[in-house]
């Protein structure tokens, strides 16, 4: 396994991808995280997660889970095996603290343009292609809630140039606006659909700007983490569901 790439506030270009991401804490430091872990010269893992709770305790657990995740990828980089192993080793750690963590793991093969997705209790990623938004269907139980990972397996997509993937935490879709309305996945899908053709950083900025418009004047309870990956290099043929 190669280097670990964290890109908070920066733009990453590698593996035929352009990536922009950020994590915006609410009042207290929470347990949101995202990172990119290079596996070999053609494969990169993208992960977004949220460890239960707030403050130092959640932040410490988050670091433990991230460390274990890198180790699980090193041992066996098959995405489903990574999540299963992480649930076994990390789940014990989480249960000791009465906690759990949600996580969405993507594995992108930059040569084949293949994106594999495994989900453990996290909001599923959105895929933008030709102005259409698709919601990944993969579902699974959050890490630490059961001894064995219970999920719907690996979902695969083939991405082409210009396609984009949006990862986010619950703080974004559960953000409150007027009349206790929530920002919600439908509004997110709508703004993502309008980003067809924009680069990854512009997409991220526009989504955050729409969120800010919606939530202006209302205090928020949770961290917001948002990551946009856009294919800029070689793509493969369209597939998936």
């Amino acid at each position: 396994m190669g280097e670990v790439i964290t890109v908070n506030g920066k733009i990453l270009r590698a593996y035929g991808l352009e990536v922009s991401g950020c994590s915006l804490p609410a009042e207290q430091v929470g347990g949101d995280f995202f990172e990119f872990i290079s596996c070999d010269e053609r494969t990169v893992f993208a992960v977004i997660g949220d460890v239960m709770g707030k403050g130092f305790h959640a932040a410490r657990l988050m670091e433990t889970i991230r460390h274990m995740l890198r180790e699980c990828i090193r041992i066996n980089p098959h995405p489903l095996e990574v999540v299963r192993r992480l649930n076994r080793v990390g789940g014990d750690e989480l249960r000791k603290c009465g906690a759990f963590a949600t996580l969405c793991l993507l594995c992108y093969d930059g040569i084949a343009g293949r994106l594999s997705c495994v989900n453990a209790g996290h909001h599923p990623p959105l895929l933008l292609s030709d102005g259409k938004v698709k919601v990944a269907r993969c579902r699974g139980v959050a890490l630490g809630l059961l001894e064995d990972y219970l999920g719907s397996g690996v979902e695969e997509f083939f991405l082409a140039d210009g396609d984009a993937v949006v990862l986010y935490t619950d703080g974004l879709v559960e953000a409150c606006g007027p009349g206790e309305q929530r920002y919600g996945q439908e509004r997110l899908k709508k703004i993502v659909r309008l980003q067809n053709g924009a680069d990854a950083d512009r997409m991220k900025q526009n989504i955050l700007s729409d969120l800010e418009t919606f939530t202006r004047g209302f205090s928020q309870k949770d961290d917001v983490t948002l990551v946009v990956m856009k294919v800029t290099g070689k793509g493969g043929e369209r597939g998936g569901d």
Partner: protein
Amino acid sequence: MEIRVRQKKGMVILEVEGELDFSNVEQLQQEIQRRTEEVVEIDLQGLRFIDSSGVGMLLSQVRHLYKQGRTLRIVRIPDFIREDLEVIGFFQVLEALKTNPSA
């Protein structure tokens, strides 16, 4: 958060209103643990927000009561909260606990 307690034969109903989060999760946990009835029902109809600490506490209490041969029932979950719980896999965990209380 407000908790209203209603008793029926052999069971107690805890009606939870407001927001259940990191700041007050222990209040509901203590109320659940204080009960001695065989069935404890948590009525969430008046719940406006729940964070991951609240979800984690409810699941740990479900597990705890199952181990004692008792039941913690969670009812009248508002739709928007039900959607969040589905994402986490909350109901799959409840199913797994029903078939194997020590899961």
